[in-house]
């Protein structure tokens, strides 16, 4: 497959898509964090009748009228949902569903009514008109169309011209607007997102911040609607932010990441759409969704694979420490000659199958135990030191339990077997300070740190 030729029209479209995705993704972070993703979904559906009415009144897709009408309805959506919730005694999500489906249905009917007279496909309300972006250009600098007509083809124009798609002006403006808003009220957004009550007591009205955020979402929805349509705005509002949430713990990084993810989804999605000759906005949201899927699986800290690996590592460490503990007890009870246990016995005692075998192998490789498999295993001097620490943790916990919980003596061993792997040196020191670390409740000596 040869790479497709990108025309300047394509490049403009990509620019529009990038601005739109960055605008949606960044403000969408806060929807995700505050569990308002579905409100974003609702607003993006509810603005449709506003757009349709503005359309019908002005006879064209004149942006200011659309913006005004749709913005009003978008802001009303939350209020309407609350009203419906009280009116019908409904749960919140159902009330939202009633409001936005009804408004969306109304919008579709209105659009269907006017669509034939302006040659518009009603489906475009869902997936936007990205492909038409280069057709509506605006001159920023230089001679306008009337002047250029007087210049013969092939001749240089007297002054340089710069034409940009009208949509780009809107989307770039939106993007800058959102980024500015987020930057300016960043700390307010952060507090209001995590603890609305605290924010209000500190004099930053959480309600005001909430209102600003909703206004931004409504404006974003209305303006992006033309590029990617209502349903796909939802994907761009939520997916980059959710993906970023899986990749970082810090809010600032999360917002930046979602911008980057949105932009890359726009670029990759558009290129794929050109290559496959398919809907651009659809492809962009598929890419955004795929980014999330990849992150959910592979994100280093919060992805599923990462968790499975860390789980396996933890189980392995526990198995190793159990082997060390087992051999130490044998070593302790014997004389100065290094005591040992048959390999098979160790395997049986510690963990099922593969895990304990691997543990023995790892300990051997680290020089903590000696003896071949099928043979007798014993601790090396280095192994004795390490094992002593495990036993120390175990016996400290037994002592702590016996002092603070009314547990009989024979109930102390099992909980300590579990906890010994998690007691950090700090916790051990605290326990030692509280209950002393000479001997455990059974009279056994506690190894020193």
């Amino acid at each position, binding site marked *: 497959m040869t790479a497709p030729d990108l025309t300047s029209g394509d490049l403009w479209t990509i620019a529009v898509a990038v601005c739109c995705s960055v605008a949606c993704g960044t403000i969408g972070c806060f929807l995700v964090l505050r569990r308002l993703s579905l409100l974003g979904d609702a607003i993006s559906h509810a603005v449709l009748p506003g757009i349709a009415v503005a359309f019908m009144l002005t006879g064209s897709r004149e942006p200011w009228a659309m913006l005004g009408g749709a913005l009003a309805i978008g802001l009303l959506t939350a209020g309407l949902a609350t009203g419906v919730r009280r009116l019908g005694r409904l749960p919140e999500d159902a009330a939202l569903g009633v409001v936005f489906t009804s408004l969306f249905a109304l919008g579709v009917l209105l659009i269907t009514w006017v669509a034939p007279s302006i040659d518009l496909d009603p489906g475009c309300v869902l997936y936007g008109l990205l492909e038409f972006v280069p057709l509506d250009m605006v001159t920023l600098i230089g001679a306008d169309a009337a002047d250029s007509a007087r210049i013969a083809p092939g001749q240089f124009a007297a002054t340089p011209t710069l034409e940009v798609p009208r949509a780009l002006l809107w989307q770039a403006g939106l993007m800058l607007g959102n980024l500015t808003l987020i930057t300016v009220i960043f700390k307010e957004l952060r507090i209001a997102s995590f603890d609305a009550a605290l924010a209000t007591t500190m004099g930053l009205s959480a309600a005001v911040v909430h209102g600003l955020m909703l206004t931004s979402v409504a404006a974003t929805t209305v303006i992006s609607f033309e590029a990617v349509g209502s349903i796909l705005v939802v994907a761009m509002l939520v997916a980059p932010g959710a993906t970023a949430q899986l990749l970082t713990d810090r809010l600032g990084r999360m917002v930046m990441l979602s911008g980057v993810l949105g932009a890359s989804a726009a670029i990759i999605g558009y290129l794929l759409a050109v290559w496959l000759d398919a809907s651009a906005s659809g492809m962009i949201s598929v890419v955004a969704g795929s980014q999330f899927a990849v992150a959910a699986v592979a994100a280093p800290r919060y992805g599923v694979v990462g968790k499975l690996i860390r789980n396996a590592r933890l189980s392995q460490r526990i198995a190793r420490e159990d082997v060390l503990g087992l051999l130490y007890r044998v070593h302790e009870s014997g004389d100065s000659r290094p005591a040992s246990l048959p390999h098979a016995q160790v395997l049986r005692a510690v963990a099922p199958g593969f895990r304990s075998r691997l543990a023995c192998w790892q300990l051997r490789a680290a020089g903590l135990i000696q003896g071949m498999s099928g043979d007798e295993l014993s601790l090396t001097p280095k192994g004795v030191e390490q094992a002593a620490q495990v036993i120390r943790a175990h016996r400290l916990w037994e002592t702590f339990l016996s002092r*603070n919980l009314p547990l009989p003596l024979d109930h102390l061993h099992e909980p300590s077997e579990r906890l010994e792997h*998690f007691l950090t040196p700090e916790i051990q020191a*605290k326990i030692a300070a509280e209950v002393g670390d000479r001997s455990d409740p059974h009279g056994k000596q506690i190894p020193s740190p």
Partner: protein
Amino acid sequence: MRPSANSATLDLRAPAATANGSATGIAIEVHDVTVAYHRKPVLWDIDVSIPAERLVAIVGPNGAGKSTLLKAILGLVPMASGSVAIFGRTLREARKFIGYVPQRESVDWDFPIDALGVVLMGAYGRLGWFRRPGRAERARAMECLVRVGMTDFASRQIGQLSGGQQQRIFLARALMQDARLYLMDEPFAGVDAATEHAIVGVLRELRAAGRTVVAVHHDLQSVQDFFDHVVLLNTRLIAAGPTREVFTTANLQRTYGGRLTVLDEAAEAVKHATP
């Protein structure tokens, strides 16, 4: 004589027969139970025997894990370690002997159901799959409403009742289950004096009939009046036994005197290390 499942009358005065025929036994045996919430241990190695035919209070500060213990006994939350035996049986076998009065927070109060409908739910377990409650069950449900003094409210929608009235309906639902062991989560929380009086009356009748009640209780003043056995809990067991012996100033100081920092730190360490 135990009332049969289909009988129309519920005779609370009839003593319940116990598994081994003796007058008292162990209702609940909790053996080394540890419960974790979001990977973090919130109950540590609880080891306690709760005697039968008593009114037992579980007492402790907020966040002590009292509700968690009840839920662990009922199998509503998983146990990280340990086991529970009820009348010497596993939970699965013993479920039909257990009645549960949960906290009011867990319920959807806008639900379209009236008071009688809620009480009838107590019979669902006995009815089994697909069968509907019939005349016999409705009669028994009305009797349970009589027991808690709520007959006038039988056809009121549940959300229209006050907190105390809702609590009494929940109690009636549990009575409907005609259980040997009742587990109640804060039955006296936020109720008016009349409701408190009604609930105490029902509890005393239950004890006289040889039933066991284990209730999470928050009001220290009334423990000695209502309960003859107490379990003091603060993420770990402090003490358990007859109220006279165990409900002492020293024990209460240990229960309410703050948490063990070592336990909290160890819980954090476990949570942090577990993916």
